[in-house]
């Protein structure tokens, strides 16, 4: 068995090595985009069951964003919702025989973590300006600036490691058990892996939302800082 920490290149496009994780990512992208396109056609005022299910997904994500940030979900819906859906489908893709989830590789998880890190900057600057974004590092006081700068990197790194560790370990354990105990024994572990994949997708998306909202809130002027809606510290611990 190959090390789960290594990615085997299937072929190269220029300097880019195309691994199975990338191929699987493309497949997931195709499935998600094509499925979303097919399902979201012909949306009407009186919804069908299909449309009601789609609206339930969107409404649930909107509720989570609104409860986490207290702000309107529209600016964050695309990024956070796609983050959740992609990680969830990627995690659950391990159920397909011969498919290794992209989130079980370092590159994918690191890419998502980097994007979360950049999205924190993007939404922070867009919400409060560059001054507000930099002011968010001085919360609750300037003494915390080094720690907050360190934290902005470590918290993303921890997300990346958490997701990678959970998914990779699940795949690894199932592989070991399947190689040792045959066909039916890994099923309970795969069911557990479904739950783990859902929880990890949820945690990753919610943490990304918390980081963004914390940056936006901390970057606002002090006079408007009457609402201590910064659960980021709590969530991180």
């Amino acid at each position, binding site marked *: 068995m190959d090390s789960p920490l290594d990615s085997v290149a299937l072929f190269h496009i220029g300097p880019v090595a195309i691994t199975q994780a990338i191929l699987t990512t493309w497949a997931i992208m195709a499935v998600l985009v094509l499925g979303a396109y097919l399902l979201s056609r012909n949306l009407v005022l009186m919804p069908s069951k299909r449309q009601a299910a789609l609206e339930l997904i969107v409404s649930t994500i909107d509720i989570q964003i609104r409860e986490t940030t207290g702000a309107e979900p529209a600016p964050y*819906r695309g990024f956070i919702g*796609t983050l959740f859906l992609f990680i969830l489908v990627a995690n659950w893709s391990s159920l397909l025989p011969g498919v290794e989830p992209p989130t079980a*590789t370092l590159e994918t998880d690191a890419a998502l973590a980097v994007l979360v890190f950049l999205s924190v900057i993007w939404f922070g600057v867009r919400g409060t300006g560059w001054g507000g974004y930099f002011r968010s590092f001085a919360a609750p006081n300037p003494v915390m600036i080094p720690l907050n700068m360190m934290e902005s990197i470590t918290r993303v790194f921890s997300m990346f490691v958490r997701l990678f560790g959970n998914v990779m370990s699940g795949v690894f354990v199932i592989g070991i058990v399947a190689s040792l105990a045959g066909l039916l024994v890994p099923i309970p572990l795969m069911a557990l892996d479904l739950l783990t994949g859902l929880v990890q997708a949820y945690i990753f998306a919610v943490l990304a939302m918390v980081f963004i909202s914390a940056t936006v809130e901390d970057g606002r002027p002090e006079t408007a800082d009457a609402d201590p809606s910064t659960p980021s510290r709590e969530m991180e611990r």
Partner: protein
Amino acid sequence: MTIDFWGLGLQAINFLILVWLLTRVFWRPVAAAIVARQTAARSLLNEGKSLQAKADAALAEVAEIRAGMAAEREALLAKAATEAETATKAVLAEARDKADKLIAAAELARKRDAEAARAREAARSAELAVDIARRLLDRLPREEVQAAFLDLLVKALTEMKPQDRAALQGAREGIELVGPTDLEAAEQARIAKAVQTALGGPAKLRFVTEPELIAGFELRTSHFVLHNSWQADLDAILKELKHAA
């Protein structure tokens, strides 16, 4: 453990493309559908509230109209009762007037009938008296009766005032001496002599026959009548009888 940064970057690009695509084909359309339904539901709710308000207003208006109709009905009933009472009083008054007029007319007719009956009775009495007198006269000798009436005529002329007697004697158109029967010439001469004697001188006499006198002689000029007949006596008696009735 190594990280393929080319792979990392490619995965990041893949995810960003996925975000862009899903935002276009999934998140925005579905969110727009939710907002559209919320807007439609809000519009329907507002429309429902508006319609309910209109319905409440219409209901209140109907209730007001119904109350107005009840009041108008009461007013019309009261007006009709008043008009009926007035009409009844008018009809009663008119009937009473008509009855009074009928009673008065009946009373007048009764009096007129009574008067007519009394007149008829008086006329019948007069006729009866005349008839009685004529029958009595028929039993008496006419010459003696006429002689008695001539005596009464002479006596009346004698008792007249001298100037009246002279005026009667001097009547220019003459004196009519009226009797019930035609007289013979000798008798006319005897009567004319007696009258002229009573008048105290000659007078122009002209004999006229009127059977209605029954008996007696009367003198008539254009300004003077001396009644001296049974007919005149009976008329006097009849007049007295009428006065007595």
